[in-house]
């Protein structure tokens, strides 16, 4: 009974995802590219970087990258903390 309910919910979500993917804008024609066109036109003049993706990652959206670096740091700290405890006892 419970498994059937889970399966029904799964089928509903899957059908919703496929339906939404089928009704999106056509592949190859982005719907609102104004911001990206600004980045493509001005990144060389404003940041001096030929690689527009790097210009966005480290300059226009640097705060985003800072949060992402924090997540990586927290994950590494978590892995180290998980494996630390028993090892100290054995020494």
């Amino acid at each position: 009974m419970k498994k059937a309910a889970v399966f029904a919910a799964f089928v509903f979500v899957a059908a919703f995802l496929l339906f939404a993917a089928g009704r999106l804008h056509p592949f190859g024609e982005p719907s609102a590219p104004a911001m990206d066109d600004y980045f493509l036109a001005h990144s060389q003049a404003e940041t001096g970087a030929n690689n527009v993706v790097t210009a966005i990652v480290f300059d226009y959206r640097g705060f985003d990258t800072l949060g992402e670096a924090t997540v990586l740091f927290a994950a590494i700290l978590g892995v180290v903390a998980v494996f630390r405890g028993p090892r100290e006892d054995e020494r």
Partner: protein
Amino acid sequence: MRGEMSVIVRTIARITYALILVFGFYVILHGHLTPGGGFQGGAVVASGFALLPVAFGAAAAKRYLNPSLMRHLEEVGSLAFLALGFLGIGISFFYNVLANSGSLFGAAVPFGPNSGILNSAGTLPFMNWAVGLKVMTGLMTIVLVLLIGAGKEGKD
């Protein structure tokens, strides 16, 4: 995972180790000109480091790669990235103060396709190096700690 692999694997690892490291550092250095950047180059260098435990065993790799040193270098990379973000705090957070200033990495770039000027992009190359250091040491910390944890379980 404790033992080392066959002589073929060890020889190939000795040869390709330096090549992988050079390619990773190239990807980090040219992050503002060619495909790549700090994250990708750091991942390439970390995969080169990960070749050591695979080919020579965890015990031999632990002699050359110190997990706690790796973790401290990762913190240094984080702090360097944060400090570079604070460089332009007078105008806004993460403002690119060095771009087009004429100083180090401050050359102006003409619009349109060009052959790439390495001495450009202001603070972006420094941020690439900071994030590259952070990612390569961080991934290596994960690999080494997981290796040590799994090896310890096998000994019990």
